[in-house]
Protein backbone atom coordinates (compact mmCIF):
# COMPACT_ATOMS: atom_id res chain seq x y z
CA UNK A 1 0.00 0.00 0.00
CA UNK A 2 1.29 3.43 -0.96
CA UNK A 3 1.37 6.21 1.57
CA UNK A 4 -0.83 9.24 1.12
CA UNK A 5 0.62 12.33 -0.51
CA UNK A 6 1.04 15.16 2.01
CA UNK A 7 -0.63 18.47 1.35
CA UNK A 8 -0.94 21.97 2.79
CA UNK A 9 -3.88 24.32 2.79
CA UNK A 10 -2.96 27.99 2.50
CA UNK A 11 -5.74 30.22 3.73
CA UNK A 12 -7.68 29.44 6.88
CA UNK A 13 -10.95 31.11 5.93
CA UNK A 14 -14.22 29.47 4.93
CA UNK A 15 -12.88 27.90 1.74
CA UNK A 16 -9.73 26.58 3.38
CA UNK A 17 -11.71 25.10 6.26
CA UNK A 18 -14.28 23.42 4.03
CA UNK A 19 -11.47 22.04 1.91
CA UNK A 20 -9.85 20.67 5.05
CA UNK A 21 -12.94 18.63 5.94
CA UNK A 22 -13.15 17.25 2.42
CA UNK A 23 -9.43 16.48 2.22
CA UNK A 24 -9.55 14.54 5.49
CA UNK A 25 -11.83 12.05 3.70
CA UNK A 26 -9.43 11.59 0.79
CA UNK A 27 -7.95 8.15 0.30
CA UNK A 28 -4.88 9.47 -1.43
CA UNK A 29 -4.13 12.86 0.14
CA UNK A 30 -3.31 13.70 3.73
CA UNK A 31 -3.59 17.36 4.74
CA UNK A 32 -0.73 18.07 7.15
CA UNK A 33 -0.40 21.87 7.27
CA UNK A 34 -2.86 24.73 7.48
CA UNK A 35 -1.37 28.17 6.83
CA UNK A 36 -3.04 31.39 7.93
CA UNK A 37 -2.12 34.96 8.79
CA UNK A 38 -4.34 35.53 11.81
CA UNK A 39 -3.46 33.76 15.09
CA UNK A 40 -7.09 34.18 16.18
CA UNK A 41 -8.35 32.39 13.07
CA UNK A 42 -11.13 29.90 13.72
CA UNK A 43 -9.89 27.85 10.76
CA UNK A 44 -6.42 27.45 12.28
CA UNK A 45 -7.92 26.41 15.60
CA UNK A 46 -10.03 23.73 13.93
CA UNK A 47 -7.08 22.49 11.88
CA UNK A 48 -4.98 22.15 15.02
CA UNK A 49 -7.74 20.20 16.74
CA UNK A 50 -7.91 17.90 13.75
CA UNK A 51 -4.20 17.16 14.09
CA UNK A 52 -2.67 19.46 11.47
CA UNK A 53 0.36 21.63 12.01
CA UNK A 54 -0.54 25.29 11.75
CA UNK A 55 1.13 28.66 11.37
CA UNK A 56 -0.22 32.19 11.44
CA UNK A 57 2.94 33.51 9.76
CA UNK A 58 1.81 32.87 6.19
CA UNK A 59 3.72 30.62 3.81
CA UNK A 60 6.99 31.77 5.42
CA UNK A 61 5.93 30.09 8.63
CA UNK A 62 5.67 26.72 6.88
CA UNK A 63 8.72 27.00 4.61
CA UNK A 64 11.30 25.57 7.07
CA UNK A 65 9.14 22.43 7.45
CA UNK A 66 8.22 21.67 3.85
CA UNK A 67 11.01 19.20 3.16
CA UNK A 68 10.86 17.47 6.50
CA UNK A 69 7.07 17.11 6.39
CA UNK A 70 7.15 16.05 2.72
CA UNK A 71 4.57 18.61 1.58
CA UNK A 72 4.13 17.99 -2.15
CA UNK A 73 0.81 19.67 -2.92
CA UNK A 74 -0.66 22.96 -1.72
CA UNK A 75 -4.04 24.53 -2.22
CA UNK A 76 -4.11 28.30 -2.24
CA UNK A 77 -7.41 29.59 -0.85
CA UNK A 78 -6.22 33.13 -0.15
CA UNK A 79 -6.67 35.85 -2.77
CA UNK A 80 -5.46 36.67 -6.24
CA UNK A 81 -3.25 39.39 -4.78
CA UNK A 82 -1.11 37.11 -2.63
CA UNK A 83 -1.25 34.01 -4.76
CA UNK A 84 1.70 35.08 -6.88
CA UNK A 85 4.08 35.34 -3.95
CA UNK A 86 2.73 32.14 -2.36
CA UNK A 87 3.31 30.35 -5.63
CA UNK A 88 6.84 31.69 -6.02
CA UNK A 89 7.74 30.63 -2.48
CA UNK A 90 6.46 27.07 -2.84
CA UNK A 91 7.75 26.54 -6.35
CA UNK A 92 11.30 26.52 -4.92
CA UNK A 93 10.45 23.35 -3.03
CA UNK A 94 8.80 21.65 -5.99
CA UNK A 95 5.36 21.89 -4.40
CA UNK A 96 2.50 21.57 -6.88
CA UNK A 97 -0.10 24.30 -6.54
CA UNK A 98 -3.85 24.07 -6.90
CA UNK A 99 -4.94 27.69 -7.07
CA UNK A 100 -8.44 28.43 -5.85
CA UNK A 101 -8.03 32.20 -6.29
CA UNK A 102 -8.82 33.93 -9.59
CA UNK A 103 -5.10 34.75 -10.10
CA UNK A 104 -4.97 32.34 -13.04
CA UNK A 105 -1.19 31.96 -13.29
CA UNK A 106 -1.49 28.33 -14.30
CA UNK A 107 -3.83 26.68 -16.81
CA UNK A 108 -7.52 26.49 -15.95
CA UNK A 109 -8.90 23.23 -14.64
CA UNK A 110 -12.58 22.34 -14.63
CA UNK A 111 -12.46 18.66 -13.66
CA UNK A 112 -15.27 17.11 -15.74
CA UNK A 113 -14.09 19.00 -18.82
CA UNK A 114 -10.32 18.94 -18.88
CA UNK A 115 -8.93 17.13 -15.84
CA UNK A 116 -7.89 14.19 -18.03
CA UNK A 117 -5.94 16.52 -20.31
CA UNK A 118 -3.88 17.58 -17.31
CA UNK A 119 -2.59 14.04 -16.84
CA UNK A 120 1.06 13.64 -17.75
CA UNK A 121 1.68 17.35 -18.17
CA UNK A 122 3.04 17.74 -14.63
CA UNK A 123 1.82 21.30 -14.37
CA UNK A 124 3.39 23.07 -11.40
CA UNK A 125 0.34 25.33 -10.99
CA UNK A 126 -3.26 24.78 -12.02
CA UNK A 127 -6.04 27.29 -11.53
CA UNK A 128 -9.62 26.45 -10.59
CA UNK A 129 -11.12 29.47 -12.46
CA UNK A 130 -13.90 30.75 -10.16
CA UNK A 131 -16.86 29.27 -8.32
CA UNK A 132 -19.17 30.48 -11.06
CA UNK A 133 -16.83 29.00 -13.64
CA UNK A 134 -16.82 25.58 -11.97
CA UNK A 135 -20.62 25.63 -11.90
CA UNK A 136 -21.21 26.73 -15.48
CA UNK A 137 -18.28 25.90 -17.76
CA UNK A 138 -19.19 22.18 -17.80
CA UNK A 139 -22.52 23.08 -19.40
CA UNK A 140 -20.92 25.33 -22.02
CA UNK A 141 -18.56 22.44 -22.80
CA UNK A 142 -21.54 20.06 -22.98
CA UNK A 143 -22.84 22.13 -25.88
CA UNK A 144 -19.53 22.94 -27.55
CA UNK A 145 -18.54 19.26 -27.75
CA UNK A 146 -21.70 18.74 -29.84
CA UNK A 147 -21.34 21.75 -32.14
CA UNK A 148 -19.55 25.12 -32.37
CA UNK A 149 -20.68 27.72 -29.82
CA UNK A 150 -20.40 31.27 -31.07
CA UNK A 151 -21.05 32.86 -27.68
CA UNK A 152 -21.36 31.55 -24.13
CA UNK A 153 -22.79 33.61 -21.29
CA UNK A 154 -23.19 32.65 -17.67
CA UNK A 155 -25.04 34.34 -14.84
CA UNK A 156 -24.07 33.16 -11.37
CA UNK A 157 -26.28 34.22 -8.48
CA UNK A 158 -24.92 33.67 -4.99
CA UNK A 159 -26.24 34.53 -1.56
CA UNK A 160 -24.69 37.53 0.20
CA UNK A 161 -23.54 35.32 3.04
CA UNK A 162 -21.51 33.13 0.70
CA UNK A 163 -19.70 35.99 -1.05
CA UNK A 164 -16.53 36.55 0.93
CA UNK A 165 -14.49 39.73 1.25
CA UNK A 166 -12.01 38.58 -1.41
CA UNK A 167 -14.71 38.19 -4.05
CA UNK A 168 -16.29 41.47 -3.08
CA UNK A 169 -13.11 43.50 -3.11
CA UNK A 170 -12.16 42.24 -6.52
CA UNK A 171 -15.39 41.39 -8.29
CA UNK A 172 -13.90 42.29 -11.68
CA UNK A 173 -11.48 39.36 -11.34
CA UNK A 174 -14.50 37.11 -11.11
CA UNK A 175 -16.16 38.39 -14.28
CA UNK A 176 -12.94 38.48 -16.29
CA UNK A 177 -11.56 35.11 -15.20
CA UNK A 178 -14.91 33.35 -15.58
CA UNK A 179 -15.48 34.81 -19.04
CA UNK A 180 -12.03 33.66 -20.09
CA UNK A 181 -12.72 30.18 -18.70
CA UNK A 182 -15.98 30.03 -20.69
CA UNK A 183 -13.83 30.53 -23.78
CA UNK A 184 -10.70 28.54 -23.00
CA UNK A 185 -12.24 25.54 -21.24
CA UNK A 186 -15.91 25.87 -22.19
CA UNK A 187 -15.07 26.15 -25.87
CA UNK A 188 -17.20 29.20 -26.67
CA UNK A 189 -15.66 31.59 -29.19
CA UNK A 190 -16.65 34.54 -27.01
CA UNK A 191 -17.50 34.38 -23.32
CA UNK A 192 -19.32 36.68 -20.91
CA UNK A 193 -19.85 36.29 -17.18
CA UNK A 194 -22.20 38.12 -14.84
CA UNK A 195 -22.35 37.74 -11.07
CA UNK A 196 -25.26 38.76 -8.88
CA UNK A 197 -25.19 38.82 -5.09
CA UNK A 198 -28.58 38.42 -3.43
CA UNK A 199 -29.09 39.15 0.30
CA UNK A 200 -32.44 37.32 0.70
CA UNK A 201 -33.04 35.45 3.97
CA UNK A 202 -33.05 32.52 4.23
CA UNK A 203 -30.07 32.58 1.86
CA UNK A 204 -30.76 31.31 -1.63
CA UNK A 205 -29.02 28.26 -2.97
CA UNK A 206 -26.48 29.11 -5.68
CA UNK A 207 -28.21 29.57 -9.05
CA UNK A 208 -26.54 29.54 -12.42
CA UNK A 209 -27.94 30.27 -15.83
CA UNK A 210 -25.98 29.28 -18.92
CA UNK A 211 -26.84 30.64 -22.34
CA UNK A 212 -25.07 29.35 -25.44
CA UNK A 213 -25.59 30.76 -28.91
CA UNK A 214 -24.70 28.04 -31.38
CA UNK A 215 -23.42 28.83 -34.84
CA UNK A 216 -25.85 26.46 -36.57
CA UNK A 217 -29.30 25.49 -35.27
CA UNK A 218 -28.84 23.43 -32.10
CA UNK A 219 -28.82 19.65 -32.42
CA UNK A 220 -31.36 19.28 -29.66
CA UNK A 221 -31.23 15.56 -28.92
CA UNK A 222 -27.46 15.42 -28.91
CA UNK A 223 -27.23 18.45 -26.61
CA UNK A 224 -29.79 16.99 -24.20
CA UNK A 225 -27.78 13.74 -24.00
CA UNK A 226 -24.43 15.52 -23.72
CA UNK A 227 -25.78 17.71 -20.91
CA UNK A 228 -27.18 14.69 -19.08
CA UNK A 229 -23.77 13.01 -19.15
CA UNK A 230 -21.96 16.17 -18.09
CA UNK A 231 -24.29 16.75 -15.13
CA UNK A 232 -23.70 13.13 -14.02
CA UNK A 233 -19.92 13.79 -14.13
CA UNK A 234 -20.22 16.90 -11.94
CA UNK A 235 -22.55 15.07 -9.56
CA UNK A 236 -19.74 12.62 -8.81
CA UNK A 237 -18.09 15.29 -6.68
CA UNK A 238 -20.98 17.74 -6.15
CA UNK A 239 -24.10 15.60 -5.65
CA UNK A 240 -26.28 18.72 -5.32
CA UNK A 241 -25.57 19.91 -8.90
CA UNK A 242 -29.00 19.94 -10.56
CA UNK A 243 -30.63 21.03 -13.79
CA UNK A 244 -33.63 22.95 -12.55
CA UNK A 245 -35.07 23.91 -15.93
CA UNK A 246 -34.13 23.51 -19.56
CA UNK A 247 -32.42 23.09 -21.81
CA UNK A 248 -34.56 25.73 -23.47
CA UNK A 249 -34.06 25.89 -27.23
CA UNK A 250 -35.04 29.22 -28.76
CA UNK A 251 -33.62 29.80 -32.23
CA UNK A 252 -29.88 29.34 -31.80
CA UNK A 253 -30.05 29.91 -28.05
CA UNK A 254 -29.59 26.99 -25.68
CA UNK A 255 -30.24 27.81 -22.01
CA UNK A 256 -29.76 25.81 -18.83
CA UNK A 257 -31.03 26.84 -15.40
CA UNK A 258 -28.96 25.16 -12.69
CA UNK A 259 -29.07 24.97 -8.93
CA UNK A 260 -25.98 24.05 -6.91
CA UNK A 261 -26.48 22.81 -3.39
CA UNK A 262 -23.36 22.15 -1.36
CA UNK A 263 -22.55 19.11 0.75
CA UNK A 264 -22.60 21.19 3.93
CA UNK A 265 -19.21 19.94 5.18
CA UNK A 266 -18.26 23.15 6.90
CA UNK A 267 -20.08 25.71 4.78
CA UNK A 268 -23.86 25.80 4.80
CA UNK A 269 -25.65 23.91 2.01
CA UNK A 270 -26.81 27.07 0.24
CA UNK A 271 -23.17 27.97 -0.45
CA UNK A 272 -22.95 25.57 -3.38
CA UNK A 273 -20.69 28.12 -5.03
CA UNK A 274 -17.99 27.53 -2.44
CA UNK A 275 -18.61 23.80 -2.20
CA UNK A 276 -18.15 23.24 -5.93
CA UNK A 277 -14.87 25.11 -5.70
CA UNK A 278 -13.45 23.07 -2.82
CA UNK A 279 -14.74 19.79 -4.29
CA UNK A 280 -13.18 20.58 -7.66
CA UNK A 281 -9.95 21.66 -5.94
CA UNK A 282 -9.76 18.37 -4.07
CA UNK A 283 -10.50 16.32 -7.18
CA UNK A 284 -7.77 18.11 -9.08
CA UNK A 285 -5.26 17.64 -6.26
CA UNK A 286 -6.10 13.94 -6.12
CA UNK A 287 -5.18 13.59 -9.76
CA UNK A 288 -1.86 15.32 -9.08
CA UNK A 289 -1.31 13.00 -6.10
CA UNK A 290 -1.86 9.97 -8.32
CA UNK A 291 0.77 11.28 -10.71
CA UNK A 292 3.20 11.81 -7.85
CA UNK A 293 2.60 8.28 -6.61
CA UNK A 294 3.10 6.83 -10.08
CA UNK A 295 6.36 8.74 -10.50
CA UNK A 296 7.60 7.56 -7.11
CA UNK A 297 6.65 3.94 -7.86
CA UNK A 298 8.50 4.02 -11.18
Amino acid at each position, binding site marked *: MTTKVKAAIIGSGNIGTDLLYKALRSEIIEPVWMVGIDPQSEGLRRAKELGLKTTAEGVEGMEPHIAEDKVQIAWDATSAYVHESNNAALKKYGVKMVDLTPAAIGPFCVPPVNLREMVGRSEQNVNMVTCGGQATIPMVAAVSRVQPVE*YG*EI*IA*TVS*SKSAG*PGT*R*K*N*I*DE*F*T*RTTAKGVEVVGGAKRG*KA*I*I*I*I*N*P*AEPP*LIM*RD*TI*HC*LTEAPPKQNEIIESARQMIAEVQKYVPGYKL*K*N*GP*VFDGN*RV*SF*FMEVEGLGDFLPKYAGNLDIMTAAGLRTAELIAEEIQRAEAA
Partner: protein
Amino acid sequence: MNLQGKRVTLHDMSLRDGMHPQRHQLTPAQMVEVATALDAAGVPLIEVTHGDGLGGASVNYGFPAASDEEYLRAVVPKMSTAKISALLIPGIGTVDHLRMARDCGVETIRVATHCTEADVSEQHISLGAKMEMDTVGFLMMAHMIPPEALLEQAELMQGYGANCLYITDSAGYMLPDDVTARVGLLREKLDADVEVGFHGHHNMHMGIANSLAAIEAGAARIDGSVAGMGAGAGNTPLEAFVAVLHRMGVETGVDMWKLMDVAEEIVYPLMTHKVRVDRDSLTLGYAGVYSSFLLHAKRAAEKYGLKSTDILVELGRMKTVGGQEDMIEDVALDMKKAGAAE
Protein backbone atom coordinates in the same frame (compact mmCIF):
# COMPACT_ATOMS: atom_id res chain seq x y z
CA MET B 1 -44.35 72.22 1.14
CA ASN B 2 -42.02 75.16 0.70
CA LEU B 3 -39.11 74.63 -1.69
CA GLN B 4 -38.86 78.29 -2.71
CA GLY B 5 -35.33 79.28 -3.73
CA LYS B 6 -33.84 75.76 -3.64
CA ARG B 7 -31.60 74.62 -6.48
CA VAL B 8 -31.55 71.14 -7.90
CA THR B 9 -29.50 69.36 -10.58
CA LEU B 10 -31.71 67.37 -12.93
CA HIS B 11 -30.34 64.26 -14.56
CA ASP B 12 -32.03 62.79 -17.61
CA MET B 13 -32.37 58.99 -17.86
CA SER B 14 -34.09 58.59 -21.23
CA LEU B 15 -30.97 57.38 -23.03
CA ARG B 16 -30.08 54.78 -20.37
CA ASP B 17 -33.12 53.77 -18.32
CA GLY B 18 -35.16 54.50 -21.45
CA MET B 19 -33.22 51.76 -23.20
CA HIS B 20 -35.28 49.18 -21.27
CA PRO B 21 -38.64 49.95 -22.90
CA GLN B 22 -36.82 50.37 -26.21
CA ARG B 23 -35.27 46.92 -25.78
CA HIS B 24 -31.86 48.62 -26.01
CA GLN B 25 -32.50 49.36 -29.67
CA LEU B 26 -32.06 53.15 -29.73
CA THR B 27 -29.57 53.97 -32.46
CA PRO B 28 -26.60 56.29 -31.96
CA ALA B 29 -28.33 58.77 -34.29
CA GLN B 30 -31.49 58.75 -32.14
CA MET B 31 -29.37 59.23 -29.04
CA VAL B 32 -27.62 62.20 -30.61
CA GLU B 33 -30.96 63.75 -31.60
CA VAL B 34 -32.44 63.41 -28.10
CA ALA B 35 -29.27 64.42 -26.26
CA THR B 36 -28.67 67.50 -28.42
CA ALA B 37 -32.23 68.65 -27.83
CA LEU B 38 -31.91 68.06 -24.06
CA ASP B 39 -28.63 69.97 -24.08
CA ALA B 40 -30.32 72.88 -25.87
CA ALA B 41 -33.10 72.81 -23.26
CA GLY B 42 -30.50 73.26 -20.52
CA VAL B 43 -30.61 69.76 -18.99
CA PRO B 44 -27.23 69.65 -17.22
CA LEU B 45 -26.62 65.86 -17.03
CA ILE B 46 -27.62 63.11 -19.44
CA GLU B 47 -26.97 59.40 -18.93
CA VAL B 48 -26.00 57.33 -21.95
CA THR B 49 -25.43 53.56 -21.81
CA HIS B 50 -27.05 50.19 -22.24
CA GLY B 51 -30.05 50.00 -19.87
CA ASP B 52 -28.08 47.76 -17.53
CA GLY B 53 -25.06 50.00 -17.67
CA LEU B 54 -21.66 49.62 -19.27
CA GLY B 55 -21.10 46.04 -20.38
CA GLY B 56 -24.82 45.24 -20.20
CA ALA B 57 -24.87 43.82 -23.74
CA SER B 58 -25.89 40.19 -23.17
CA VAL B 59 -28.45 37.47 -23.77
CA ASN B 60 -29.64 38.10 -20.23
CA TYR B 61 -30.43 41.79 -20.60
CA GLY B 62 -30.56 42.17 -24.38
CA PHE B 63 -28.06 43.04 -27.07
CA PRO B 64 -28.16 46.76 -27.93
CA ALA B 65 -28.25 48.33 -31.38
CA ALA B 66 -24.71 49.69 -30.85
CA SER B 67 -21.93 49.31 -28.31
CA ASP B 68 -21.58 51.59 -25.27
CA GLU B 69 -18.49 53.03 -26.87
CA GLU B 70 -20.31 53.79 -30.14
CA TYR B 71 -23.12 55.56 -28.26
CA LEU B 72 -20.72 57.59 -26.15
CA ARG B 73 -18.43 58.55 -29.03
CA ALA B 74 -21.49 59.70 -30.99
CA VAL B 75 -23.10 61.74 -28.21
CA VAL B 76 -20.32 63.28 -26.08
CA PRO B 77 -18.72 65.53 -28.75
CA LYS B 78 -22.15 66.97 -29.65
CA MET B 79 -22.78 68.47 -26.21
CA SER B 80 -22.37 72.19 -25.64
CA THR B 81 -23.06 72.53 -21.91
CA ALA B 82 -24.57 69.19 -20.83
CA LYS B 83 -22.30 66.57 -19.30
CA ILE B 84 -22.67 62.88 -20.05
CA SER B 85 -22.86 60.23 -17.36
CA ALA B 86 -22.61 56.45 -17.54
CA LEU B 87 -23.93 53.72 -15.28
CA LEU B 88 -21.78 50.82 -14.15
CA ILE B 89 -23.07 47.82 -12.21
CA PRO B 90 -20.17 45.81 -10.72
CA GLY B 91 -20.67 42.14 -11.58
CA ILE B 92 -21.80 43.21 -15.07
CA GLY B 93 -19.34 45.95 -16.04
CA THR B 94 -15.71 46.27 -14.98
CA VAL B 95 -13.07 48.97 -14.49
CA ASP B 96 -12.08 48.38 -18.14
CA HIS B 97 -15.48 49.74 -19.17
CA LEU B 98 -15.01 52.64 -16.78
CA ARG B 99 -11.66 53.54 -18.37
CA MET B 100 -13.22 53.31 -21.82
CA ALA B 101 -16.08 55.63 -20.75
CA ARG B 102 -13.62 58.13 -19.32
CA ASP B 103 -11.68 58.01 -22.56
CA CYS B 104 -14.90 58.78 -24.44
CA GLY B 105 -15.32 61.95 -22.36
CA VAL B 106 -17.80 60.74 -19.75
CA GLU B 107 -17.67 63.14 -16.76
CA THR B 108 -19.95 61.39 -14.29
CA ILE B 109 -19.73 57.72 -13.37
CA ARG B 110 -22.53 56.17 -11.39
CA VAL B 111 -21.58 52.92 -9.72
CA ALA B 112 -24.68 50.91 -8.85
CA THR B 113 -25.05 48.03 -6.42
CA HIS B 114 -27.94 46.37 -4.67
CA CYS B 115 -28.63 48.43 -1.53
CA THR B 116 -26.97 45.90 0.80
CA GLU B 117 -23.89 45.13 -1.32
CA ALA B 118 -22.00 48.43 -1.50
CA ASP B 119 -18.67 46.73 -0.82
CA VAL B 120 -18.53 45.32 -4.36
CA SER B 121 -18.10 48.88 -5.65
CA GLU B 122 -14.77 49.71 -4.06
CA GLN B 123 -12.64 49.10 -7.17
CA HIS B 124 -14.91 51.14 -9.41
CA ILE B 125 -15.69 54.07 -7.12
CA SER B 126 -12.08 54.51 -6.10
CA LEU B 127 -10.95 54.46 -9.74
CA GLY B 128 -13.64 56.99 -10.71
CA ALA B 129 -12.50 59.27 -7.90
CA LYS B 130 -8.86 58.76 -8.83
CA MET B 131 -9.60 59.79 -12.40
CA GLU B 132 -11.22 62.92 -10.93
CA MET B 133 -14.65 62.06 -12.26
CA ASP B 134 -17.89 63.12 -10.65
CA THR B 135 -18.29 59.78 -8.86
CA VAL B 136 -21.70 58.68 -7.69
CA GLY B 137 -22.70 55.70 -5.54
CA PHE B 138 -26.10 54.39 -6.60
CA LEU B 139 -27.88 52.17 -4.06
CA MET B 140 -30.58 50.24 -5.90
CA MET B 141 -33.83 48.75 -4.56
CA ALA B 142 -33.39 51.06 -1.58
CA HIS B 143 -36.92 50.32 -0.34
CA MET B 144 -35.77 46.87 0.82
CA ILE B 145 -33.82 48.03 3.86
CA PRO B 146 -34.45 50.58 6.62
CA PRO B 147 -32.80 54.03 6.50
CA GLU B 148 -30.14 53.17 9.11
CA ALA B 149 -28.95 50.14 7.12
CA LEU B 150 -28.92 52.20 3.94
CA LEU B 151 -26.76 54.82 5.65
CA GLU B 152 -24.14 52.19 6.52
CA GLN B 153 -23.89 51.22 2.86
CA ALA B 154 -23.79 54.86 1.76
CA GLU B 155 -20.95 55.49 4.19
CA LEU B 156 -18.97 52.65 2.62
CA MET B 157 -19.32 54.25 -0.82
CA GLN B 158 -18.45 57.66 0.59
CA GLY B 159 -15.35 56.05 2.08
CA TYR B 160 -14.31 54.68 -1.33
CA GLY B 161 -14.47 58.21 -2.72
CA ALA B 162 -18.02 58.85 -3.97
CA ASN B 163 -18.93 62.55 -3.93
CA CYS B 164 -22.66 61.89 -4.32
CA LEU B 165 -24.91 59.11 -2.99
CA TYR B 166 -28.17 58.10 -4.58
CA ILE B 167 -31.23 56.52 -3.05
CA THR B 168 -32.60 54.49 -5.93
CA ASP B 169 -36.21 53.39 -5.90
CA SER B 170 -35.68 50.81 -8.64
CA ALA B 171 -39.07 49.20 -8.06
CA GLY B 172 -41.07 52.42 -7.79
CA TYR B 173 -42.26 51.07 -4.44
CA MET B 174 -41.55 53.99 -2.12
CA LEU B 175 -44.05 56.49 -0.81
CA PRO B 176 -43.00 60.04 0.09
CA ASP B 177 -42.42 59.24 3.78
CA ASP B 178 -40.02 56.41 2.79
CA VAL B 179 -38.07 58.89 0.68
CA THR B 180 -38.04 61.55 3.38
CA ALA B 181 -36.70 59.13 5.98
CA ARG B 182 -33.88 57.86 3.74
CA VAL B 183 -32.80 61.12 2.13
CA GLY B 184 -33.10 62.94 5.46
CA LEU B 185 -30.86 60.49 7.30
CA LEU B 186 -28.19 60.41 4.58
CA ARG B 187 -28.21 64.21 4.33
CA GLU B 188 -27.81 64.50 8.07
CA LYS B 189 -25.02 61.94 8.47
CA LEU B 190 -22.92 62.04 5.28
CA ASP B 191 -20.13 64.57 4.85
CA ALA B 192 -21.48 68.04 4.08
CA ASP B 193 -19.70 68.21 0.70
CA VAL B 194 -21.20 64.88 -0.41
CA GLU B 195 -24.46 65.34 -2.31
CA VAL B 196 -27.55 63.18 -1.95
CA GLY B 197 -29.67 62.21 -4.94
CA PHE B 198 -32.92 60.41 -5.65
CA HIS B 199 -33.86 58.18 -8.59
CA GLY B 200 -37.55 57.34 -8.84
CA HIS B 201 -39.79 55.11 -10.91
CA HIS B 202 -43.33 56.11 -11.71
CA ASN B 203 -44.90 52.66 -11.22
CA MET B 204 -47.40 53.91 -8.65
CA HIS B 205 -47.50 57.42 -10.13
CA MET B 206 -45.36 58.63 -7.22
CA GLY B 207 -42.30 59.79 -9.20
CA ILE B 208 -43.01 63.51 -8.81
CA ALA B 209 -44.34 63.37 -5.25
CA ASN B 210 -41.35 61.28 -4.15
CA SER B 211 -38.86 63.57 -5.88
CA LEU B 212 -40.38 66.62 -4.18
CA ALA B 213 -40.08 64.84 -0.83
CA ALA B 214 -36.43 64.14 -1.66
CA ILE B 215 -35.69 67.80 -2.37
CA GLU B 216 -37.44 68.88 0.81
CA ALA B 217 -35.30 66.39 2.78
CA GLY B 218 -32.09 67.73 1.26
CA ALA B 219 -31.49 65.99 -2.09
CA ALA B 220 -29.48 68.10 -4.52
CA ARG B 221 -29.80 65.82 -7.56
CA ILE B 222 -32.93 64.28 -8.99
CA ASP B 223 -33.21 61.78 -11.83
CA GLY B 224 -36.04 61.98 -14.30
CA SER B 225 -36.66 61.11 -17.88
CA VAL B 226 -37.99 63.20 -20.71
CA ALA B 227 -41.39 61.79 -21.66
CA GLY B 228 -40.89 59.50 -18.66
CA MET B 229 -39.03 57.04 -20.89
CA GLY B 230 -37.58 54.49 -18.48
CA ALA B 231 -38.09 50.98 -17.14
CA GLY B 232 -41.46 49.96 -15.71
CA ALA B 233 -43.85 52.90 -15.87
CA GLY B 234 -40.77 54.99 -16.52
CA ASN B 235 -38.83 57.47 -14.43
CA THR B 236 -40.14 60.69 -12.99
CA PRO B 237 -41.45 62.49 -16.13
CA LEU B 238 -38.96 65.30 -16.41
CA GLU B 239 -40.98 67.97 -18.24
CA ALA B 240 -43.88 67.65 -15.79
CA PHE B 241 -41.45 67.68 -12.87
CA VAL B 242 -39.79 70.84 -14.18
CA ALA B 243 -43.22 72.47 -14.50
CA VAL B 244 -44.00 71.61 -10.88
CA LEU B 245 -40.58 72.81 -9.67
CA HIS B 246 -40.90 76.11 -11.48
CA ARG B 247 -44.33 76.71 -9.97
CA MET B 248 -42.79 76.04 -6.57
CA GLY B 249 -39.90 78.41 -7.19
CA VAL B 250 -37.13 75.79 -7.46
CA GLU B 251 -34.27 76.65 -9.79
CA THR B 252 -33.39 74.01 -12.37
CA GLY B 253 -31.74 75.95 -15.20
CA VAL B 254 -33.94 73.99 -17.60
CA ASP B 255 -36.20 75.60 -20.24
CA MET B 256 -39.54 73.91 -19.62
CA TRP B 257 -41.02 74.84 -23.01
CA LYS B 258 -38.08 73.41 -24.89
CA LEU B 259 -38.15 70.28 -22.77
CA MET B 260 -41.85 69.79 -23.55
CA ASP B 261 -40.98 69.99 -27.23
CA VAL B 262 -38.29 67.32 -26.85
CA ALA B 263 -40.85 65.00 -25.29
CA GLU B 264 -43.60 65.77 -27.78
CA GLU B 265 -41.66 66.01 -31.01
CA ILE B 266 -38.75 63.61 -30.56
CA VAL B 267 -39.21 61.11 -27.73
CA TYR B 268 -42.92 60.21 -27.88
CA PRO B 269 -42.70 59.48 -31.63
CA LEU B 270 -39.74 57.14 -31.25
CA MET B 271 -41.16 55.08 -28.38
CA THR B 272 -41.87 51.46 -29.36
CA HIS B 273 -43.41 50.46 -26.03
CA LYS B 274 -46.12 52.45 -24.25
CA VAL B 275 -44.44 53.51 -21.02
CA ARG B 276 -47.37 53.94 -18.64
CA VAL B 277 -48.91 52.78 -15.39
CA ASP B 278 -50.62 49.65 -16.66
CA ARG B 279 -51.34 46.54 -14.62
CA ASP B 280 -47.84 45.14 -15.10
CA SER B 281 -45.91 48.25 -14.14
CA LEU B 282 -48.32 48.91 -11.28
CA THR B 283 -47.60 45.37 -10.07
CA LEU B 284 -43.86 46.16 -10.09
CA GLY B 285 -44.45 49.10 -7.78
CA TYR B 286 -46.92 47.37 -5.55
CA ALA B 287 -44.88 44.14 -5.19
CA GLY B 288 -41.47 45.86 -5.05
CA VAL B 289 -39.96 44.32 -8.18
CA TYR B 290 -37.02 45.68 -10.22
CA SER B 291 -38.56 47.80 -12.98
CA SER B 292 -36.51 46.46 -15.90
CA PHE B 293 -38.05 43.01 -15.40
CA LEU B 294 -41.19 44.35 -17.09
CA LEU B 295 -40.68 43.47 -20.74
CA HIS B 296 -38.84 40.25 -19.92
CA ALA B 297 -41.83 39.12 -17.85
CA LYS B 298 -44.26 40.08 -20.62
CA ARG B 299 -42.26 38.03 -23.13
CA ALA B 300 -42.02 35.02 -20.81
CA ALA B 301 -45.76 35.24 -20.09
CA GLU B 302 -46.56 35.24 -23.78
CA LYS B 303 -44.16 32.40 -24.57
CA TYR B 304 -45.36 30.11 -21.78
CA GLY B 305 -49.05 31.05 -21.69
CA LEU B 306 -48.96 32.69 -18.27
CA LYS B 307 -50.10 35.97 -16.76
CA SER B 308 -47.25 38.47 -16.50
CA THR B 309 -48.53 39.86 -13.19
CA ASP B 310 -48.31 36.35 -11.68
CA ILE B 311 -44.67 36.08 -12.76
CA LEU B 312 -43.86 39.52 -11.32
CA VAL B 313 -45.54 38.79 -8.00
CA GLU B 314 -43.56 35.54 -7.72
CA LEU B 315 -40.30 37.38 -8.47
CA GLY B 316 -41.18 39.81 -5.68
CA ARG B 317 -41.95 36.98 -3.28
CA MET B 318 -38.54 35.43 -4.08
CA LYS B 319 -36.86 38.74 -3.18
CA THR B 320 -35.05 38.91 -6.50
CA VAL B 321 -32.72 41.87 -6.97
CA GLY B 322 -31.63 43.97 -9.91
CA GLY B 323 -29.88 41.99 -12.61
CA GLN B 324 -31.66 38.69 -11.96
CA GLU B 325 -33.45 38.77 -15.31
CA ASP B 326 -32.44 35.13 -15.82
CA MET B 327 -34.87 34.14 -13.06
CA ILE B 328 -37.82 35.31 -15.15
CA GLU B 329 -37.77 32.48 -17.68
CA ASP B 330 -36.86 30.08 -14.89
CA VAL B 331 -39.87 31.16 -12.79
CA ALA B 332 -42.11 30.96 -15.87
CA LEU B 333 -40.94 27.39 -16.54
CA ASP B 334 -41.63 26.47 -12.89
CA MET B 335 -45.10 28.00 -13.06
CA LYS B 336 -45.87 26.21 -16.29
CA LYS B 337 -44.76 22.89 -14.75
CA ALA B 338 -46.86 23.56 -11.66
CA GLY B 339 -49.84 24.46 -13.87
CA ALA B 340 -49.47 21.26 -15.90
CA ALA B 341 -49.31 19.21 -12.70
CA GLU B 342 -52.61 20.58 -11.41
